[in-house]
């Protein structure tokens, strides 16, 4: 479904040099699979998603979605950004209706579909609120509904819950699992929070410190459906956690040393 082969992305940095965000990255994601990508902060995880979404073309290598090379934004892709991307001047309902409207649905049809999804993400009764009247967690629900109303076959998520407090984050993870189960959509979920990755994913790809490439891929053999809150306490969970953390720790260490070198 998603295929990255030797994908490399370079940016021209402000100082005139070249910054390599992603180097020789290989990753495949099958339909219906939930893959989490973990790595140290600022290693280039988000760039991976923008390659798949078609927002940025790769400098080298191949990025394909549904067997076709990515040139523009591929069909059936949804993308949830780290920062709030809801429109502050639209109500909850009209925000969620954006996707269908852009894709040519009539206003009433788009609103009907939006109303359904607003209810499904648990915001029934808040249809006519403006985003600034909602809490951070509720705005994330709006963003989730806005993405899911298009019924994406591929869902890209870039640290969507990182700005939330711990309790709300746990709740949103449970909501995501509930909404995703049975859709058959492939998910690529980028996070720096290993716990979050293991709660959600079937496979976890550990990235190297920047420039990012896949260091190791781990299978998470935890049963589904999962209870996002309870599963973290099981011994199986702790075993996987220990195994993956062993691999991730080195990269985090490298990043830390680089940071402290820059500070000193």
């Amino acid at each position: 479904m998603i295929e990255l082969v030797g994908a490399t992305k370079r940016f021209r940095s402000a100082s005139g040099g070249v910054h390599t965000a992603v180097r020789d990255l290989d990753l495949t994601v099958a339909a219906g699979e939930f893959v989490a990508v973990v790595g140290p902060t600022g290693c280039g995880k988000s760039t991976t998603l923008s390659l798949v979404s078609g927002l940025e073309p790769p400098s080298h290598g191949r990025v394909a979605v549904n067997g076709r090379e990515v040139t523009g934004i591929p069909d059936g892709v949804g993308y949830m950004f780290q920062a709030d991307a809801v429109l502050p001047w639209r109500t909850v309902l009209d925000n969620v209706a954006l996707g269908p409207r852009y894709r040519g649905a009539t206003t009433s049809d788009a609103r009907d579909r939006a109303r359904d999804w607003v209810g499904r993400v648990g915001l029934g009764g808040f249809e006519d609120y403006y985003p600034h009247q909602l809490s951070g967690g509720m705005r994330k629900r709006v963003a989730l509904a806005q993405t899911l109303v298009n019924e994406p076959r591929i869902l890209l998520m870039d640290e969507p819950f990182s700005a939330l407090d711990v309790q709300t984050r746990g709740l949103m993870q449970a909501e995501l699992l509930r909404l995703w189960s049975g859709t058959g959509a492939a998910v690529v979920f980028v996070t720096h929070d290993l716990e979050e990755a293991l709660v959600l994913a079937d496979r976890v790809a550990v990235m190297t410190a920047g420039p990012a490439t896949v260091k190791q891929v781990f299978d998470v053999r935890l049963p589904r459906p999962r209870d996002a809150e309870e599963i973290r306490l099981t011994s199986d969970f702790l075993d996987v956690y220990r195994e993956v953390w062993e691999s991730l720790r080195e990269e985090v260490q490298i990043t830390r040393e680089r940071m402290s070198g820059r500070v000193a």
Partner: protein
Amino acid sequence: MSHDVALPGAAAPIDEDLAVSSARAAVRRRKLTVTGVRLLLVAVWLGSWELSATYLIDPFYYSKPSAIWGKLVAWFTQTTAFGSIWTQISYTLQEAVAGFALGGVAGVLLGIVLGRSRFVADVLAPFIKAANAIPRIVLASLFVIWFGLGMSSKIATAFILVFFAVFFNAFQGAREVDRGLVNNARILGAGRAQILWTIVVPSATSWILASLHSAFGFAIIGAVVGEYSGADKGLGLLINNAQGTFDSAGIYAGMIIITVIALVAEWLLTLLERRLLRWRPAASGSHDVQI
């Protein structure tokens, strides 16, 4: 500072009501005081002006409130040197509103187009800078030559002043659109026109509305200065004529009428702004006040 007194729980609700009503009364009292002091200031100012113009300084140059009031009454009850005062007001208002509307629309359109097109903006940047550096008020003289003494030369002056005020804000607003919002819209399936209409225009709106406040002031300035440069009707002509006949009260009277018009326009624009920007959180004026 600290008025908190530990109260037994049972007495709390009654005390709450009391606190609320006394807080309301305090707010009312404060409003009354503010208004009272304002009125006092105006009375002191006008009174001292009136007195000093009567006994100390020459009212021929400085006029005095009673003379200005007399002038206003004369204009409104009888007539001005150029016909009814309402004709003058409506003439100036028509010029200002037409210049404001045309300049506003042109400024918004061009600002957004240039704000979204890097290439055109780069090409035109030096010309725009130069055009902005021209003392535009001088153009009023040119417009009288081009368009004659009628309304159109004043509309042109108001237009040029309004256009630049609105244009720069629309340009800035269109440039500073959040990239995240645009990317999100692209993923959701928006085309270029849809992004322009649903993302760029609304995000530039708060910038544009901010500029419209000062722009209406500019429109009136444009119309009045245009009338200075040559006209057969209008408030600017009235003031210019007062200057020519050493009628300082007439100048003040014209000034007062223009000020009232500008204040009414400002109020209307604030209403429009509230309507268009109701999605924004309330202004930070309504913070808690300690009781």
